[in-house]
């Protein structure tokens, strides 16, 4: 412990001179990086618009209120599409995530050397790319529409579900698996009676959790043309129909809140 002496009395010091110098230098570096980043942002910003922002915000607010309530009659189908994108996407994702998760979990993978890295790569690459980018890509490949949205949500969710699921598989109680194995069960019977019952609650929780997130994400997929209520949002934005925009935003908020409430209820019932 570094000690400082003064007037023959020992005064406690937390760090040595070297340590505090390193820390000080680290903070300096951090601040310098932040200032540099801010400078880059500032350079590519038109500050005139920023100073004008309160007026513009006020202007948009007066244009957007009150929301055009009778427009809601045209939103029924887009909301149904949004729900379909989220639900079907989640189902497809779960079907594909289960095998990936079993291949990625250390205790169930057939080959830790070859197959596990591939499964992990699938998880990382699908997880790190946003569903909007997947939608963009799929629209270029299979054309705009609800189907592209479903597939985009599905691909994006594989990584998320598989990651949580394989962590759940790795955490299972091994004694139960051993007990089933000891009865002379085959590999698949061990899977069905030793492993699956242990991860089923986690699986259901993950499914509902991801469904909740997918409802959120599918509301904006339409911005790039992949169906759902976002399509109406971008159409209204393009013609500057602000009363419609505000109504759509309210509908999206309500949908997100409902899905969050449902998922919280279901997860509360399962766990």
């Amino acid at each position: 412990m570094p000690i400082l002496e003064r007037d023959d009395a020992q005064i406690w010091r937390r760090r040595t001179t070297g340590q505090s110098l390193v820390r000080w230098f680290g903070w300096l570096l951090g601040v310098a990086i932040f200032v540099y980043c801010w400078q880059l942002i500032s350079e590519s910003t038109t500050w005139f618009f920023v100073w004008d922002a309160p007026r513009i915000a006020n202007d948009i607010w007066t244009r957007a209120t009150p929301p055009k309530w009778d427009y809601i009659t045209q939103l029924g189908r887009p909301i149904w599409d949004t729900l379909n994108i989220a639900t079907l996407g989640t189902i497809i994702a779960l079907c594909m995530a289960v095998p990936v998760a079993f291949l990625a979990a250390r205790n169930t993978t057939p080959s830790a050397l070859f197959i596990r890295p591939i499964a992990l790569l699938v998880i990382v690459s699908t997880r790190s790319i946003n569903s909007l980018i997947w939608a963009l890509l799929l629209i270029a490949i299979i054309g705009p529409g609800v189907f592209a949205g479903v597939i985009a949500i599905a691909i994006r969710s594989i990584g998320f579900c598989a990651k949580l699921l394989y962590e759940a598989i790795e955490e299972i109680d091994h004694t139960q698996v051993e007990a089933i194995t000891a009865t002379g069960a085959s590999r698949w019977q061990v899977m069905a009676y030793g492993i699956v019952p242990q991860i089923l609650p986690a699986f259901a929780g993950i499914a509902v959790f991801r469904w909740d997130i997918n409802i959120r994400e599918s509301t904006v997929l339409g911005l790039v043309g992949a169906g759902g209520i976002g399509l109406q949002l971008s159409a209204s934005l393009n013609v500057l129909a602000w009363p419609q925009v505000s109504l759509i935003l309210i509908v999206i908020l309500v949908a997100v809140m409902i899905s969050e409430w449902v998922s919280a209820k279901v997860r509360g019932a399962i766990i």
Partner: protein
Amino acid sequence: MSHRELDDMLGKGWRKPAFVKNPLLRWALLLGFFAYLIAAFMTIEVDWGRVYEGLDRGWAFVLAFTSPDFISRWTDIWSGLLESIVMTVAASVVGILISIPIGLGAARNIAPLPIYMICRGIVAISRALQEIIVAILLVAIFGFGPLAGFLTLSFATIGFLSKLLAEDIEAMDKVQAEAIKASGARWPQWINYGVQPQVMPRLVGLSMYRIDINFRESAILGLVGAGGIGATLNTAFDRYEYDTAAAILILIIGIVMALEYLSGIIRARVQ
């Protein structure tokens, strides 16, 4: 299980207990689920001819991953990537700094009720609005460029981090905080020595996780004109330059993987 039930079950084969115990509820859930699936499939319009045509393009895209083109659009990629990184760093720093006081205010055990309500309100608004919708509104208000993206990411960071920080503070050990208070500490000292050491490891971990999320989100903000690599990626898709798009996606995946690895190391060191 009572003796009576056990006696009844003697001599019969064992059957796996169902996941949902109430048979009526189980069948209703199953039936409703299939009814929904059929309804959903009926209303999705898939142009299979278009999908079939697109398979070639999809294959071309998969092939593009084997020969990504970093060179011919390198200046565009680099400027977009730099903007994304800059936005991520600045927004994470500002977002984390703002979310600490809000997180303190949103913890019921240290904040008085009026402040608690205000801070929880801020958190709820920030969490309910998705990044991309906030970005659209901010681009309309502040004009195109990374400033809108920076503000969007900061706003989203506040909702995420404040909520989790507040939950962590609410779950902290009261004894330590009380001991500090009993020594006659003033409020800032109480927070600094009684609360902060308990939540610091988790705060660091969550911040690292949020930086990771911010980078991923910054990749799509460009789609609505809020700066970052998204605009470059969108252009690459629109021009069917799959090799450039593949290069950008590989870069995004690589950076996300590096960030995840880094945050793993930092979290392991802090905890």
